[in-house]
């Protein structure tokens, strides 16, 4: 028995020398170092906190406080801004991705668009937002121009420190998050499939609707997720363009954390995770439903 265990142990150690073993070892470190923190939020949110002491007793107090202080509305407000940004990015990104993957022929133009869609990942968050605040402000160039042209009598107040400003400030930086996944999924569609659709008498719109969009759906969903989530956590646009009149998710997380209300912050994180989980589930079910419908139609045709 002992010999067998020792043999197993030595085999396990030998596997650590192999690349696959090292990968599993790294995965274990990743699990403890990067994924377990995600679970801490859930655990801590059910704790009771008095002063700076966290007491290990089960309680729903943190959630009650969360509802009473209106943080749930903050999450919903931020989510609606993020949804707006995602939809605008989708409307602009889908045609661009389609053009980039299937229509564009000029190599240097494709590379130029690639570069334009890579740089935003690496821009400083404050640098890309700071200028918008100056431009949209009541003494900024837009208002000055409109006043000069006598199109308005007084500076437009809603340009800055509003949901409009925040959405405007977020659409640009997170646009590549939408385009890249859709672009890759359309790139993977074989041209022969599209040709076949045309040969069978489908017009461009029918090909788009019944062939291209269903095949690109994983990319579109990935794009929506990759845009929605970072926008949800963005701290700079609400701070510089929102003007602090309304609270957004990042403000809430920061203020709960700086006031050392850690159980409150943890329960907020849990609410966000629950919302993201429900949304992913809905997206998955929608996708399943769509593919099942397609399979059903194919079966009926056959």
């Amino acid at each position, binding site marked *: 028995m002992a010999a067998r265990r020792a043999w197993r142990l030595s085999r396990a150690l030998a596997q650590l020398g192999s*690349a*696959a073993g*090292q*990968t*599993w070892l*790294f*995965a274990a470190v*990743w*699990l403890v170092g990067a994924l*377990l*923190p*995600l679970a*801490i*939020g859930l655990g*801590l949110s059910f704790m009771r906190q008095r002063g700076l002491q966290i007491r290990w007793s089960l309680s729903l107090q943190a959630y009650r406080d969360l509802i009473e202080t209106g943080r749930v509305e903050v999450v919903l407000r931020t989510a609606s801004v993020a949804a707006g940004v995602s939809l605008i*990015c989708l409307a602009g990104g889908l*045609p*661009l991705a389609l*053009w980039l993957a299937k229509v564009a022929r000029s190599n240097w133009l494709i590379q130029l*668009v690639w*570069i*334009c*869609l*890579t*740089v935003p990942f*690496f*821009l*400083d*968050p*404050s*640098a*890309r937002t*700071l*200028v*918008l605040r*100056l431009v949209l*402000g009541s003494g*900024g*160039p837009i208002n000055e121009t409109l006043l000069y042209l006598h199109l308005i009598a007084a500076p437009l107040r809603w340009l800055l420190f509003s949901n409009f400003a925040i959405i*405007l400030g977020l659409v*640009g*930086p997170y*646009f590549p998050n939408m385009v890249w996944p859709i672009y890759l999924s359309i790139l993977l569609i074989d041209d022969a499939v599209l040709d076949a659709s045309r040969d069978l008498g489908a017009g461009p719109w029918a090909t788009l609707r019944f062939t291209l969009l269903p095949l690109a759906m994983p990319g579109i969903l990935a794009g929506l997720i*990759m845009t929605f*989530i970072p926008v*949800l*956590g*963005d*701290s*700079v646009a609400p*701070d*510089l363009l929102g003007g602090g009149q309304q609270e957004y*998710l*990042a403000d809430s*997380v920061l203020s709960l*954390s700086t006031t050392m209300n850690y159980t409150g912050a943890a329960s907020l*994180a849990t609410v*966000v*995770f629950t919302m*993201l989980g429900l949304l992913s589930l809905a997206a998955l079910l929608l996708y399943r439903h769509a593919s099942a419908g397609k399979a059903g139609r194919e079966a009926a045709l056959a």
Partner: protein
Amino acid sequence: MLLVGGFCITALIYAPVLLLAVLSVSGNPLSGVPGDFTTRWYVQLAADQSWRAPMLRSAEIATLVSALCVIAALLVGRTLPRLRRGLGLLAFGFLLPLGVPGTVMGLLIFMYYRFVFGLHMGYWSLVLSHFIWAFPFALIGMLVATSRFDLGLLDAAADLGAPPWRRLWDIERPLLMPGLISAALFGFLLSFTELPRSLFVAGGVQTLPLYNWAQASSHTSHVPLIFCLNTLITLLSIAASAAAVMLLGRGARA
């Protein structure tokens, strides 16, 4: 016609960046109106000391994160496509942090290491949280290179009598180079500009994005200097991105 929307949004990214550069050589950048061109702010930036320490700190952290990303992406990216079991599970686990908003991730990393392990935040937690942020991107870049890699090439080399180190150096290295470079670049640049996680885990260490944010939110005399500093940084990241795209584009066609 349909492309107009896409190009408008792309313009929305670059118009502020362009204006930032123009304002950095304008007499009164805080008005938001260009004009009265001068290099005064750049001269002041060169004389100013306050941004140097954060810049250096960020460069150090980004270099460390970049090195970690290359090593980890090389290890995982090479073996992941060859695994017979657990591929989906591992890929899901490694990419999961992409599904967490930045500020929430920062908070959770802070609470986990502070309350479970009793550690104080600092340099190490910045490196760690930036690594957790950048590694999924580095891994995706590496997987693009390794999943196209034909293992038959290594067998062929072995049959022709190439020793292991020659197989690694002459066959794997050139084919995986685009993945390595993208892992290094993503690691460096994502860390260099990371803000939402740093807000929670910095523990008193000031990185460049933290410095920039503090300057941008306040109305101090440093603000015009931020325009210059960020114009220079933006130029650098555009150059780096362009180099990466050219390189990866060449790799993709080869």
